[in-house]
């Protein structure tokens, strides 16, 4: 599980699990917060490469991290999102605060 969090330069890379729901999101938020506080990273990148399912808990994780990181002027990115995940992000209007990249 620890492999899923990596600090590269000023970025915290978070590899999202295959299914992001309430059960998994609690762990992701907690660990990501620890890294943000401990390593003092500026930006967070969520990698959806293996993710096939996400519900509103995943949105909660992203919004929560955005609130924390934007306080220090940081940015949140989402990469490798498939059309399903993109659609979920769009419905919530997250594309306005999160940069969705390939």
């Amino acid at each position, binding site marked *: 599980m620890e492999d899923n969090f990596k600090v590269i330069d000023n970025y915290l890379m978070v590899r999202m699990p295959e299914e992001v*729901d*309430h059960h998994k999101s609690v762990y992701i938020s907690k660990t990501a917060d620890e890294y943000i506080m401990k390593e003092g990273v500026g930006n967070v990148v969520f990698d959806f490469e293996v993710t096939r*399912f996400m*519900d*509103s808990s995943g949105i909660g994780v992203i919004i*929560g991290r955005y609130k924390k990181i934007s306080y220090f002027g940081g940015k949140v990115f989402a990469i490798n999102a498939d059309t399903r995940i993109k659609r*979920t992000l769009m*419905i919530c209007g997250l594309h306005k605060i999160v940069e969705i990249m390939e």
Partner: protein
Amino acid sequence: MAEFKESYHKIPDGKEKVIKRMMETEQKINHEIKKASLMKNEMRISFDAISVNEAFARVAVAAFVAPLNPTMEEISDIKTAVSEAVTNAIIHGYDEEYSGKGEKKEQVYLHCKILDDVLEVEVQDQGKGIEDIDQAMEPLFTTKPEMDRSGMGFAFMEAFMDDLEVISEPFCGTLVRMKKKLGTISWIKQED
């Protein structure tokens, strides 16, 4: 050829009756086939209100609709909506303040019905209920912002299903009823 046509029209009275009876039986068989192909199925599950069961619930519903040959898109929609409803039941219905730290064995009830090509899903809990349903259904409204909840649960259910109904009474529990018609995509294509 002309001779054949003539002779076909000049069927003796006795034969007419036989043909009539044959046609009737054919109609009856067709009716039976139609009736058999009309899907009707029902399922009930109850499980403990713990977060690992969210994945179980949505996979169970996805497997239940499999005989209807849903598209990947439809399965995803259903899974997301069911996941939202079950998550709500677990974290809001049976929240820790209301029910103590999970001492009692609390259950979430899942009831699925297929009638022809319509899927109906009911998710029921016997938790604390909702005081103001209209407010709860507003996008981005949440009672648990500290838990990183986005407040998009009901909005997602509305977006991904065709019909959503919420029945709730404080301290009596909540019932969420969702309906979705499957196979509408091909149906729309045919109309074009």
